[in-house]
């Protein structure tokens, strides 16, 4: 081979970059977030099945935000009760930011910008 040293060095660097996920995870056992307990066909606030909520909650929250901010429709009735369409006073009343939202978001590397504005009493910071 001509210029063998340079070519082999380049190849080694290339292989090292490409196989990065394999050697950095060597021997690890990955704990995925615990499976959610609620059944996928159970209805959640807004009469949305929980399965759909899991997949599309970000779009539903976005829609609710528009309804609140632009339409002034602050409340939603579900199963006879009134719920506020709000992250702080609604979602976080039952769900925990870190254990509920964060669990999957962190695992999947999702970076929602909800928390740029919204307050979570759990962390006591904006």
């Amino acid at each position, binding site marked *: *081979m*001509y*210029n*063998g040293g340079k*070519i082999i060095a*380049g*190849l080694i660097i*290339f*292989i090292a970059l*490409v*196989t*990065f*996920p*394999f050697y*950095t*995870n*060597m*021997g*690890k*056992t*990955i704990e*995925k*977030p615990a499976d959610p307990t609620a059944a996928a066909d159970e209805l959640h606030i807004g009469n949305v099945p929980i399965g759909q909520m*899991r*997949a*599309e909650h*970000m*779009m539903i*929250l*976005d829609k609710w935000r528009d309804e609140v901010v632009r339409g002034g429709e602050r409340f939603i009735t579900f199963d006879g009760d009134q719920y506020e369409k709000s992250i702080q006073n609604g979602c976080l009343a039952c769900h925990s930011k870190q254990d509920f939202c964060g669990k*999957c978001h*962190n*695992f*999947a*590397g*999702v*970076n*929602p*910008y909800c928390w740029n504005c919204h307050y979570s009493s759990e962390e006591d910071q904006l």
Partner: protein
Amino acid sequence: MGMIFSLVAVIFLAAIAFMGAKLNLFGLFGVAIPYLAVLVFIAGFIRKVIKWGQSPVPFHIPTTCGQQKSLPWIKQSKLDNPSTTLGIIGRMALEVLLFRSLFRNLKTHRTDGGPVYGSNKWLWLGGLAFHVTFFVVFIRHLRFFTEPVPAWVNTLDVVDGFVQVGVPHMLITGVVLLAAATYLLLRRIFNPQVKYISLPADYFPLFLIIGIAVSGILMRYFIKVDIIKVKELTMGLATFKTTVPDGIGGIFFIHLFLISVLFAYFPFSKLMHLGGVFMSPTRNLANNSREVRHINPWNPKVKLHTYEEYEDEFREVMKSEGLPVEKE
């Protein structure tokens, strides 16, 4: 013809993956084929580069685009006509990162007064946009192959989505990648000269990459898949503790299968310019042929008979004939 063939081939591949997912062949399409594809990619890449490394370079053939190194009072164009290794590295870096030679692309117009040459940067812009965004998209996917996800991968995602359009936030690179790949395809279709020289090997990777981009974009914004299960699968691949979770969704297997095809196809296609650009003698040789002699490795061994040997052989005869000799 080549275009239709390539399009049909990619649609056929997507259909295979979709059928596979429908038939619950998750182990085959989620584990076996991706592993095989990565293996073929790495082994094929090495084989090709070694093969190129074994090819001799008979002539010293750097392409030069500026004043070569000459007398001290003549200014050398150090990047366009490098004579040192450092210059080569600079030139190669600009070529690989900014496609400098493509920036010189010209378009010729016929006029009554003769040809007119005008600047034509569209191919440079489209090509650069395509490569840069594909690279960023590739790096962004590390979120599926690392746990915990490194902060810089998350930062890349935030920066990429900083226009904050819609939810999940629109990633600029995904959109630009699809637009640029589409431009590169349309260029092959609507530019008659380019169309004339386009082969299935040109259309196929484009359709394949467009297919990958479309399936990825669909999955992110429109046809949702269970991303936690996707990461479970990908982390299983990365840790060699494979799992095949149920119910991810067919579109994911289309995406994964098209990527597997891209990986496996890579070493046997024009996509090998990834490695080849570094091995191009026109780019990686310094223009120093007046300082350093380039020996053609093909040169046969020539049996030399030097003047000294000649004189040794005929000294007595030469002397007897009165011819001058160097050694007595």
